[in-house]
């Protein structure tokens, strides 16, 4: 039900972009009538020949950037004649990987380090080639394949306020050892992970962390801003870091793994479309830089635009 509405909206959004071809502000696109247009509208301008084969179900995690990336890949596939279904905003990786394995999801924008560490229990490092090789092997074992990694990455960062950094002379995670107690809030899954709380304690040897589990980003960020906590876990592409003037701590010991974007294809999709599809995905991934990610996130998180609209605009700009 939901996906069919999303599908209709994106089809019309793509059509609108194609027809207008104007560098329009977000407000203009969102005011476009989204109903009453026939699906054929998208075929009148592009002369796309449909690709034969099974539908590609695009999945995403349940945070905005993942949804935007999924929309970017999904709309690019649609524009090239593939049949696409969407299954977005799913939960954590633990819930999604089984779907990828049994072809419930065919395409998933992944993050190199988290996919290896959280998805397969592997050991991602700060080295892209090394981590990518290990991840490729893991995915091949379940018949899935990877596109080329995008230049852009979105890694975990531990952020503090400027005031906290100044008062305690903290610029690197290692500097936290000199603070009496660090009130640290992270999402629930942070607690056990070696790239999160576990790593802070084991790699950096910090024993002065008072951890609080706070699930939603908005409350964690507000807690940091309002002085209820000293440090929280964010993603490096979250525009709020620059907006609020937070300080992202350096990771001198290289605990935080590389997190370049990489599209994962299920066994079914790999078998059905193989190299052609991968080449298409790679051409899209090449334009996904870290700056582009921050910009995309700004439009969705700060300006409250729709991920589908933002993705369509991105594709129009980078075509």
């Amino acid at each position, binding site marked *: 039900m939901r996906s069919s*509405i999303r599908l209709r909206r994106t089809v019309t959004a793509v059509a609108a972009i194609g027809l207008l071809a104007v560098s329009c502000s977000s407000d203009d696109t969102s005011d476009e009538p989204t109903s009453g247009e026939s699906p054929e509208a998208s075929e009148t301008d592009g002369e796309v020949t449909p690709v034969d084969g099974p539908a590609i179900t695009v999945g995403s995690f*349940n*945070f*905005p950037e993942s949804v935007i990336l999924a929309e970017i890949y999904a709309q690019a596939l649609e524009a090239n004649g593939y049949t696409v279904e969407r299954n977005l905003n799913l939960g954590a990786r633990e819930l999604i990987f089984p779907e990828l394995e049994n072809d419930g999801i065919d395409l998933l924008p992944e993050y190199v380090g988290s996919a290896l560490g959280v998805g397969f229990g592997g050991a991602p490092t700060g080295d892209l080639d090394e981590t990518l090789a290990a991840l490729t092997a893991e995915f091949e074992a379940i018949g899935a394949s990877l596109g080329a990694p995008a230049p852009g990455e979105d890694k975990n960062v531990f952020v503090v306020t400027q005031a906290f950094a100044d008062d305690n002379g903290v610029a690197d995670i290692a500097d936290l050892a000199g603070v009496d107690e660090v009130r640290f809030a992270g999402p629930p899954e942070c607690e056990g992970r070696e790239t999160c709380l576990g790593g802070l304690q084991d790699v950096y040897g910090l024993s002065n962390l008072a951890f609080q589990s706070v699930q*939603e*980003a908005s409350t964690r960020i507000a807690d940091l801003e309002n002085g209820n906590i000293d440090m929280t876990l964010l993603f490096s592409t979250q525009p709020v870091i620059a907006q609020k003037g937070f300080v992202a701590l350096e990771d001198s010991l290289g605990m935080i793994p590389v997190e370049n974007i990489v599209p994962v294809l299920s066994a079914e999709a790999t078998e059905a479309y193989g190299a052609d599809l991968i080449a298409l995905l790679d051409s899209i991934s090449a334009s996904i830089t870290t700056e582009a990610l921050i910009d995309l996130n700004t439009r969705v998180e*700060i300006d*409250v635009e*729709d991920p589908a609209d933002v993705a369509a605009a991105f594709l129009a700009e980078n075509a």
Partner: protein
Amino acid sequence: MSVLAQSTGTPFFRWDWVTSHTDDIWAATVEHLQLTGLAVGSGLVVAIGLAVVSRRWRPLYGPLTAASGLLYTIPSLAAFALLVPLFGFTRITATIALASYTLLILLRNTVAGLDAVPAEVREAAVGMGYTPVRQFFEVELPLALPVIVAGVRIATVTVVGLVTVTALIGMGGLGAFILNGIRRSIAFPTEIIVGTVASVLLAAILDLILLGVERSLTPWAARR
């Protein structure tokens, strides 16, 4: 434009977001209705079954209401948590948990409605040669219907509110707006308020519709 809005801080409510998301709101409302209908519908089927059982074996009525009262006290989040290991993050989990909240209300009202059917009417049906099954569906149940519908009203309004919580197991309906509103970097109150208010409106509309049904089933009461 947007940079300006950003530097002055986001307003608490943005009406333009509402007008540009009417189809999303509609889709979520439909999903919300479906989840509500599934829960109240299956709750009603089970409650009528239990009512029949407890009328035949009267001593069971006490334990059955006690058990459904117990289900009613279990927090919805806990009910989802206990069902997810069995049924996953699915509509089945949502439906079972929500339906269990309706049992107490629906069972009591169904039994009360059936009990209120006059003995003479029942005897007349027997005298006319109705089989017990036919007597139940064609005589007793229709006469008990107004009281049952009154229960359905309460159950429906309660469930509409509880459906919002299913967003936490990935279902959504209007609750997905509430959750998305805090899932961003900076909370977006508009979305939270839209989810909440739409849920209240949906409950109010369903309440009025069911009130109309209740009245039409008891024309003598309305004419008073």
